[in-house]
């Protein structure tokens, strides 16, 4: 899911935090410095995006044309996030390469293969919906990682990370699905990214049906990721209640 909250930018997550307390994960100084820098930069990037979006709406009073204004910044910071897959592959972040890969891929897919390529849907409300969701999610996530790496995590950031998703996740999925759905007629008309027979490679690809399959795949995938986040939340917040009792 594009708006999910798994690790990839480093520092820790629910279960990882608890492990860190018991088993000090020794990251080299260089790796730690790099990750802190990366997470600060990404927090800043998404903050810039949030401010640009808010300013546009306050000045123009509408969201028509908003996407066009912020698209370069969005593409830059969202594409930069492929580094998170490298972090996992290299081992400086302890999350599965596959999970991170799927998440980053779905974001790249939305940005480059839907909103960038099918310009007619750029002013849809659903686009604004998922942009707002992604922005809030990413600011929360990257600042969480940053503070975690600095070993100074304010409670409200942790609270935000493990509670915002309850609303943001379904909202983001709704935004993405509605956007893909809105794009369908234009895909059918223009035949974008599609390959017809006859051709010398003897293969065909219909982007229209591919998008329908993508939409259908949200059905099994979204609940799994959502319940995983709920489970992580219970572990992190439930664990804290136990600690208080011991005091």
């Amino acid at each position, binding site marked *: 899911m594009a708006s999910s909250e798994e690790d990839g930018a480093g520092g820790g997550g629910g279960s990882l935090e608890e492990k860190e307390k018991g088993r000090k994960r020794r990251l080299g100084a260089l790796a730690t410095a790099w990750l802190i820098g990366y997470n600060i930069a990404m927090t800043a990037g998404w903050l810039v995006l949030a401010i640009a979006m808010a300013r546009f709406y306050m000045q123009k009073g509408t969201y028509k044309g908003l996407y066009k204004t912020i698209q370069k910044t969005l593409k830059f910071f969202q594409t930069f996030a492929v580094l998170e897959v490298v972090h996992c592959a290299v081992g400086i972040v302890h999350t599965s390469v596959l999970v991170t890969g799927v998440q980053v891929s779905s974001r790249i897919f939305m940005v480059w293969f839907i909103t960038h390529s099918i310009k007619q849907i750029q002013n849809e409300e659903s686009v604004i919906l998922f942009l707002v969701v992604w922005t809030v999610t990413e600011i929360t996530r990257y600042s969480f990682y940053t503070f975690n790496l600095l070993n100074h995590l304010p409670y409200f950031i942790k609270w935000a990370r493990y509670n915002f998703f309850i609303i943001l996740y379904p909202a983001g999925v709704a935004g993405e699905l509605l956007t893909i759905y809105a794009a369908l007629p234009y895909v059918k008309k223009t035949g974008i990214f599609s390959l017809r*027979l*006859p*051709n*010398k*490679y*003897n*293969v*065909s690809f219909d982007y229209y049906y591919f998008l329908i399959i993508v939409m259908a795949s949200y059905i099994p995938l979204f609940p799994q990721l959502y319940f995983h986040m709920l489970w992580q939340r219970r572990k992190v917040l439930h664990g804290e209640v136990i600690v208080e009792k011991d005091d």
Partner: protein
Amino acid sequence: MKHYEVEILDAKTRDKLCFLDKVEPNATIAEIKNLFTKSHPQWYPARQSLRLDPKGKSLKDEDVLQNLPVGTTATLYFRDLGAQISWVTVFLTEYAGPLLIYLLFYFRVPFIYGPKYDFTSSKHSVVHLACICHSFHYIKRLLETLFVHRFSHGTMPLRNIFKNCTYYWGFAAWMAYYINHPLYTPPTYGDEQVKLALIIFLFCQLGNFSIHIALRNLRPAGSKTRKIPYPTKNPFTWLFLLVSCPNYTYELGSWIGFAIMTQCLPVALFSLVGFIQMTIWAKGKHRSYLKEFRDYPPLRSPIIPFLL
């Protein structure tokens, strides 16, 4: 002769599942599994994993009780491997599918290409040749399963048959759809390309078969012995000098040949996915050989000479 007592505990819950007394010291694990099945008939021997340590490796069926590091009261831990299916059944099912599915597309059975093409025949000779090659390949595999291969394990987990059949049957349908399509485009370099491809394909089919025969001859009927394979008088087996799993090397070659013959991207993708999987298997096999045999020939690589 002193008899042993064997208690079998669940590896996860440590519950006492079974207590066997008066077990012969020379009893094998296979015999103990049979005894265990008597009290728990739903766990037939093929789905039992018995070990000395709950997290340890499974004991082999041939292991003898008195040779194990146990006292006269032995504690074994049981893990359920899940429903099992025989390797032969899986192979026959996963290979029969592509054979039949391809033919459905070749004969342009209704509801695939549109009514005006039903039961028509392609005007391109390469399409007919491709059907012969594809069918030959899978008939060969079926016959090898029945008459050539000697399997180390009798069974595998049941869920594998669904996974494997989806892979084989799915790719077969995808390939066959395009090769037998009324709008199929024959290879760019025409007959020359098809001829070269056919030579590669036949060469590798013969090679693959030669390796299967050589491997079969390494192992007497009914045994599970493992030996280092060596080149024989058959020149196709000389690839053993350079590679641990030449059967996979030849298999890759066959599919590359078929891809060149049909100039069909799905075939190339199928070859690529197969190559990735076979490389993983070959690397594992190569590692086992190195672990088991001190004198394993150092020149050999797993699947591609000198490279992989």
